[in-house]
């Protein structure tokens, strides 16, 4: 009898303290004094320390979710109720697509008063003229990595990747717009050609690349370059930067034709519940010291010029980590194609891979 009473007291104490613990949690970090913010970003792209710093500085609780492809992001934003996410991080062509579908909110430049930290070359992009809906974050260039210990051929352009001496040497991005676009640029065409005659010309050229490609890999193309399985890579500049750290013989080449360029951006969704906090967040991310924290952890091409200036000589002079602005200016973004043209691209890709 007594035993039972002791037990029940212990249990009730535990229950009550648990409740206190919960409410305590609610007052502490559950939600900030200035409300919440729901952000939806790429995986491995935004440092956790930066988010923590934002929470502390603004007293806003951040709920953070990640995605691994633009299409994945779009599907989730559509499937969830309005207001689930406030901020998203779409790439160039996806910004264009989301604007066309009326999914993005105009940015409030009264709050975001530091857009001029972004380098001139990244402002006013073709996918969002006037940066009405988006602010550039980080991006990259599809460059060429060459293991100079193994390759004597002097590679200066995308066209050189088609050279017969490179048989079975290439690792390329497993991305049909990237590879077909590269073939197109090597011939002087745009990555976004829609003319059927031009496309069949591109297809002919593309298929001559087949024997040179050893592996298609978007996840970690640097691995094949580092391990020596491949000696030439067509992949993101940041991947080449990481490969160089393992093997100094690897050199980066920016193609003469001008590279395929991508840029990821901050944008606010139309149904956002915390739009004001979202604007504050973008302002925060634009601050140079925060951009610097980003570059230190994820060395992609950083659009924040003032932030890059803080990075020191090693970073600034490393072309793979910090591609020259002339290269970016000569490059081209992928844009959205109509579904019929896309079907032709899909056919070309299937032919290459079969």
């Amino acid at each position, binding site marked *: 009898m007594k035993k039972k009473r002791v037990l029940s007291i212990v249990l009730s104490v535990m229950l009550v303290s648990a409740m206190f613990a919960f409410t305590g949690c609610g007052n502490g970090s559950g939600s900030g004094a200035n409300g919440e913010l729901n952000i939806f970003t790429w995986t491995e792209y935004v440092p956790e320390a930066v988010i923590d710093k934002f929470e502390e500085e603004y007293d806003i609780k951040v709920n953070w979710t990640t995605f691994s*492809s633009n*299409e*994945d992001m779009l599907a989730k934003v*559509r499937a969830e109720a309005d207001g689930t996410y406030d901020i998203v991080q779409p790439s160039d062509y996806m910004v264009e*697509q989301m604007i*066309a*579908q009326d999914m993005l909110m105009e940015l409030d430049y009264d709050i975001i008063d530091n857009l001029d930290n972004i380098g001139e070359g990244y402002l006013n992009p073709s996918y969002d003229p006037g940066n009405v809906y988006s602010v550039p974050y980080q991006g990259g260039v599809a460059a060429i990595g060459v293991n100079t210990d193994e390759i004597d051929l002097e590679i200066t352009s995308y066209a050189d990747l088609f050279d017969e001496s490179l048989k079975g040497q290439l690792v390329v991005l*497993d*991305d*049909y*717009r990237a590879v077909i676009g590269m073939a197109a640029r090597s011939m002087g065409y745009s990555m976004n050609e829609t003319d059927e005659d031009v496309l069949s010309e591109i297809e002919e050229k593309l298929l001559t690349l087949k024997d040179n*490609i*050893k*592996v*298609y*890999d978007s996840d970690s193309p640097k691995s094949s370059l580092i*391990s*020596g*399985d491949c000696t030439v890579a067509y992949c993101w500049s940041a991947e080449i930067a990481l490969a160089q750290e393992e093997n100094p013989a690897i050199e980066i080449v920016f193609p003469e034709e001008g590279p395929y360029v991508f840029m990821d951006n901050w944008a606010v969704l139309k149904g956002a519940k915390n739009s004001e906090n979202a604007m504050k967040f973008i302002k925060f991310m634009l601050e140079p010291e925060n951009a610097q924290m980003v570059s230190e952890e994820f060395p992609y091409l950083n659009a924040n010029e003032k932030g890059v200036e803080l990075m020191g000589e090693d970073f600034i002079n490393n072309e793979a980590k910090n591609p020259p602005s002339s290269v970016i200016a000569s490059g081209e973004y992928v844009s959205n194609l*109509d*579904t019929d043209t*896309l*079907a032709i691209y*899909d*056919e070309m890709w*299937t*032919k290459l*891979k*079969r």
Partner: protein
Amino acid sequence: MTKHKFKAKTLPALSMVGPVTIWLLVFVAAPLIYVLVMSFCGIDQFYNVSYHFTLTNYKRLLNADYVNIYGHSLIIALATTLICILIAYPFAYIIARTKSKKKSLLYMLVIIPFWTNSLIRIYGWRSLLGTSGWINTFLMNIHLIDEPIDFLYKQGTTIFGMVYCLFPFMVLPLYTAIEKLDNSLLEASADLGAKGPKTFFNVILPLTSGGIFSGSIMVFIPCLGYFFVADILGGGNSDVIGNLVERQFQSGNNWPLGAALSIILILVTLILVKIYQKLGGDMDSLGV
């Protein structure tokens, strides 16, 4: 009267079968029907599924390049299944018939790989087989070869990875079938003067063919869909049907076409299961 009957018979039955039926309807039938419906839809200018009837997706399935990939995929699946049978049969036979106390340990060896995600194990093979991987380094160090062997990114590598991943699915049904084998039949065969090979082909093989069939089904079907093996070990050079489906749902952004492609997979599966049933296969041993 009918009310009474309902209470006595139908209600208990409903309460037992009901939840399972609802589960199956919601989580199995509904998604499959959705895929079927989607495969007849088109996409709008923003690549969203637009619900109007069209046969375009099925027309595109007949594209020669696609058909070529189906062919390759079937060859990969067939080769994988045959290799699995050849390796798994003796293996399962030894585990099932051994009198040793190590029997359960041997059985465990088949199960253990399941403890690690197959994706990770496949990545492991990639670093083992690379030109500067352990296997090449070892072979070069013992001076068996001078130049590293190019193992990776070939159709053969894809088949190797498939065999590696799906081997246990062949062993387990074979083990069950061989375990059930009645020893007195083997003794009878020996008494009647049959030698080893004769007993094997006339007695053991027919009696365990059920295991071979169900093992084959469980290996062949995933083979058509395991796109990650083709991606990681095949390097994208030996795509299977699963890669086509994955591409349309991801970068291709054409879900209806992806749905139509997965209908092909479902059809192949149904046909194989039907053949299996016709041959007298036991549905229970498939785990369905």
